[in-house]
């Protein structure tokens, strides 16, 4: 009996044993697609808009007959799972989505498969916001932070563009501007760009030193000087909700987040969005295939679909993202292209994390 169980287990193991990426390197694209269809399903770990993505991927499922599973999970949980199971022979993650700048914190070639086997497409983006994904990461979601505002309260001609303009707005309209310092990056994008402008510190340098952190003090003083005239909100979504509720007139937001909420009718359609001339951060999210992906061929086909012009056009239309394929149509964006010139890249790590800690200690806790 025991021998029978062992034999059955061995047979089952052989049946479900995954085809690893190394096996794909000699295959043509058609063979990879055929292999993907045999694998039959793909698991995509993405930490946001899961319900919307489950609807959006239906065209992929219809086209290839490959089922896509999107588990629930947050950003930290997904990334910790990816790292924790990196030494397992076969993991649970086929396609892993992460903030593009987060990929910079790990060794790409040891964690992820090469994407060289994808069909040639020069429109795809692997360098974004100062981070080079090389052969291992491709951008699938472009986003831009800026300021959401209520046009009934602030006319487009009066929109603050510089740090001085914001200070004047705060003074003229106390507590009608708010930003978050946690639970979302729109507020941090705002305060880090104010710090950059006021203190003149180079955020593209990730080096941490006491001198560089001390140089931020004029920026902290600026926020403390006007502390009575702006409010601190709880999160990205709280910013937009308060503008929609007419409590605030302006607040930092993500372009895609605002567009998504407006498309779903969850906030007022009238709310507008702009990128101030002082600059706010833009970037995006990327996808990669872990080396121990259980369905590597299906993962490759899914990444190809995700980064294709058609899918990127659909994301721009439905989610308000900045397309991450040069051949995609970006006509549904919330901001005109000329404002994208004000886009800044996220500060380099570990300096950025130290700035965030210092901002909490020197500004938030002083309130």
């Amino acid at each position, binding site marked *: 009996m025991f021998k029978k169980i062992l034999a059955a287990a061995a047979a089952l193991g052989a049946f479900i044993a995954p085809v690893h990426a190394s096996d794909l390197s000699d295959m043509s694209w058609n063979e990879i697609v055929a292999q993907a269809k045999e694998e039959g399903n793909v698991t995509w770990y993405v930490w946001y808009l899961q319900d919307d993505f489950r609807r959006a991927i239906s065209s992929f499922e219809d086209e290839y007959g490959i089922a896509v599973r999107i588990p629930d999970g*947050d*950003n*930290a949980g997904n*990334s*910790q799972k990816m*790292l*924790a199971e990196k030494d397992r022979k076969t993991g649970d993650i086929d396609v892993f989505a992460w903030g593009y700048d987060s990929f910079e914190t790990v060794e790409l070639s040891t964690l992820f498969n090469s994407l060289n086997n994808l069909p040639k497409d020069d429109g795809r983006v692997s360098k974004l916001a100062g981070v080079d994904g090389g052969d291992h990461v491709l951008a699938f979601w472009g986003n831009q932070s800026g300021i959401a505002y209520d046009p009934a309260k602030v006319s487009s001609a009066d929109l603050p563009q510089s740090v001085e303009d914001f200070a004047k707005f705060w003074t003229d309209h106390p*507590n009608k501007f708010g930003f*978050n*310092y*946690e639970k979302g990056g729109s507020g941090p994008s705002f305060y880090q760009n104010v710090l950059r402008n006021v203190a003149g510190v180079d955020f593209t340098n990730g080096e941490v030193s006491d001198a560089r952190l001390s140089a931020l003090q004029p920026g902290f003083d600026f926020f403390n000087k006007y502390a009575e005239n702006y*409010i*601190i*909100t*709880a999160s990205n979504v709280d910013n937009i909700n*308060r503008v929609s*509720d*007419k*409590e605030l007139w302006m607040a930092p937001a993500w372009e895609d987040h605002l567009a998504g909420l407006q498309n779903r009718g969850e906030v007022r359609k009238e709310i507008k969005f702009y990128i101030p001339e002082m600059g706010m951060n833009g970037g995006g999210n990327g996808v990669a295939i872990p080396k121990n992906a259980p369905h590597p061929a299906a993962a490759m086909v899914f990444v190809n679909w995700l980064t294709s012009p058609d899918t990127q056009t659909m994301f721009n239309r439905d989610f308000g993202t900045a397309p991450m394929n040069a051949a995609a149509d970006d006509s549904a964006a919330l901001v005109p292209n000329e404002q994208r010139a004000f886009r800044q890249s996220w500060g380099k790590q570990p300096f950025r*994390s130290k700035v965030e*800690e210092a901002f*909490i*200690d020197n500004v*938030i*806790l002083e*309130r």
Partner: protein
Amino acid sequence: MTLRDWVPIFALLVPGLGLILVLIGSVVYVAVAQSFGYYALLGQSAFSLEFWSDVFDRKLFSRAVRYSIYVGFWSAVLSVALAYPLAIWLRKPFPGSIGLGALLKAPLLVHGLVAAFLYINVISYNGLLNQFMQGIGIWSEPRRLQNDPNAFGVLLLQVWKNMPFALLLLTGAVQSISDDILDASRDLGAGPWARFCKIIAPLSISGMQAAMVIIFIGALADFTFQTTVGPTNRQSMAQLMVSFKSRGDWHSAAVVGVSLMTIALLGSALLAFTSRVIMRGGLR
């Protein structure tokens, strides 16, 4: 006792001890070890006091400790203070007392997160309270009540959620006091306050201590109410721990977690001791 006698005793204790030692003990062990640099998710695992020193040096941590103790202490005290008169009132059955008791305990059935969102709907900028106050002409424009800096919203929700629990424990303790004792004290001229101080409080002290300690530990580690309605210029310890964890800084999160456990242990012991001393009218 021989080994033969010990074996069945040990076997009988295994289910309970196993749960405590293996499940809880292993979690506590990992948290403590991680706070000293072991079990690193990335990088090298090695003994280090650096995480303790870094976290303790931050104003964010000391403020989170003070804030969590503030919420824990006042939640426990206010919940018990409100529950005591109700428990005494409901001690003797009267028409409708069962229904009233059930109604008072209803918040136990409502999840804290649901209550927090309901509360936000009431106090938000365009919420019911603002609309009502403007409707009756007391306020001329909406007021910003959300995320108040003194955490009154958090305390209100904590008391709303925990008072029924205190009432549950205190009702049992107060009902166990014999009528004869209270009648005797009444015959001897004791008024309501004297009866409470000299009879009810000392005889229900165990229930009160249990309520205080359990509510204190729960409120000290509050995450739900704090992140939903709490002030934005300070963090609770649980919030700080999650914040460290979400940045991938498990070691600092473990330092906060171990500190939270230590404060819960010491704080509840101090609270139980102090309340006993006060309710008994001094050290004796």
